[in-house]
């Protein structure tokens, strides 16, 4: 019988013009054998991202997307910790982003954590429990689109091709597909693959992982300067995405 493992998942926050917004979905960061270790890891990651994001009110376009507490109750929540919120106007919504910038200089060391706690929808990571090995690996074709200047891969995903129980087999299949695609596109030699006179493939989707969730662009709008590229056949045409494999792993032979 399989034991349990504790999986840390990064939630799907995306950059927009005004800040970031949480979309459905998540990415597996890692799995640990005990809940305590996983929770420690999650808390460490959460603190690191909060420090970079700095202002929790850029997370979501309005109050409802940041907290399950209706706004007046959230204000009471703040007062409970001695924080005086901004009063809402008759017509205009509260400018929480600006309020945080002004109020935080007067916060006690404990008060920022109280504000974050009241914004219970603003979480960047989660821990889930699953049976060990209940995971599969989908080989996905990246859906490149030409934007009149370069090839774009889209924000995430593509076209799922096939699912494997073993990562090694998924990786072997991905490599075979990748080689065939490069051959079909005429990127057969090392010179062809590195040829920077060939098609440009935007790789910002992968190279900005470390800057998640804010990215390198101050307003979420990528210019040609802040965009990264691969040339010719060095671009990825397929990738592997981890998927849940609930109840399939038990009793199924791999060989």
């Amino acid at each position, binding site marked *: 019988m399989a034991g349990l493992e504790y999986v840390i998942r990064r939630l799907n926050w*995306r950059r927009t013009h*005004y800040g970031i917004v949480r*979309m*459905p979905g998540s990415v597996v960061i890692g799995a640990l054998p005990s809940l305590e270790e996983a929770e420690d890891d999650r808390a460490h990651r959460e603190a690191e991202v909060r420090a970079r994001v700095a202002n929790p009110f850029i997370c979501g*376009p309005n109050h409802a997307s940041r907290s399950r507490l*209706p706004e007046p109750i959230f204000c009471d929540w703040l007062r409970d910790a001695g924080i005086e919120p901004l009063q809402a106007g008759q017509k205009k919504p509260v400018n929480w982003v600006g309020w945080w910038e002004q109020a935080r200089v007067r916060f006690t060391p404990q008060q920022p954590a109280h504000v974050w706690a009241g914004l219970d929808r603003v979480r960047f990571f989660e821990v889930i429990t699953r049976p060990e090995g209940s995971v599969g690996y*989908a080989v996905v074709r990246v859906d*490149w689109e030409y934007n009149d200047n370069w090839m774009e891969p889209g924000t995430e995903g593509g076209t799922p091709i096939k699912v*494997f129980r073993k990562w090694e087999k998924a990786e072997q299949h991905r490599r075979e597909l990748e080689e065939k695609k490069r051959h079909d596109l005429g990127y057969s030699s090392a010179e062809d693959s590195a040829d920077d006179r060939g098609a440009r493939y935007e790789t910002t989707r992968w190279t900005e992982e470390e800057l998640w969730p804010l990215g390198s662009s101050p307003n979420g709008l990528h210019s040609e300067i802040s965009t990264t590229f691969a040339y010719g056949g060095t671009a990825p045409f397929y990738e592997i995405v981890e998927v849940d494999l609930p109840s399939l792993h038990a009793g199924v032979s791999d060989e």
Partner: protein
Amino acid sequence: MTPRTTAYLVVRFSYSTDAWDMRVPALHEDFHYQPFEDTDGGPVQVPEAVFLDRHLAQHDRMLRESAARELLNPFWFSSGYLPDLTTVSERTFREQLAGLGLPAPAESLLQAAGSIDWIAWWDRKSPYWSAEQRAGVWNMLDKVQLFDVIEIELE
């Protein structure tokens, strides 16, 4: 010999998160228009979970759909343009809202063009509704789908 079988993959549709008015996201389904081959066009998908049984996959899809709905304002899709979100007329939509015990949007939510600002309506009112009422509104918006189940080979 590695067994190969047909399985059922729960996929999430990819949505881009533009915010043209700098205020709220405008969610648009990502679509692959320029396939290298004839067969690979269509909606951009993110694989989530795989099942051997189609019914189990459909059940999982519904669970994921419900959880995802709790994160989003359904009117962020297509900028809240009602005909893009539901197959019923606005009049029927309002009648269905009343059936859920939800009053019609106030006059103050009328925009210059005469249409209702459904995005603001959801933001202001839905935190006070029950989970069933929020789910009821989502169900009425039957053109918005976040997940699907597709057949796939499993090895």
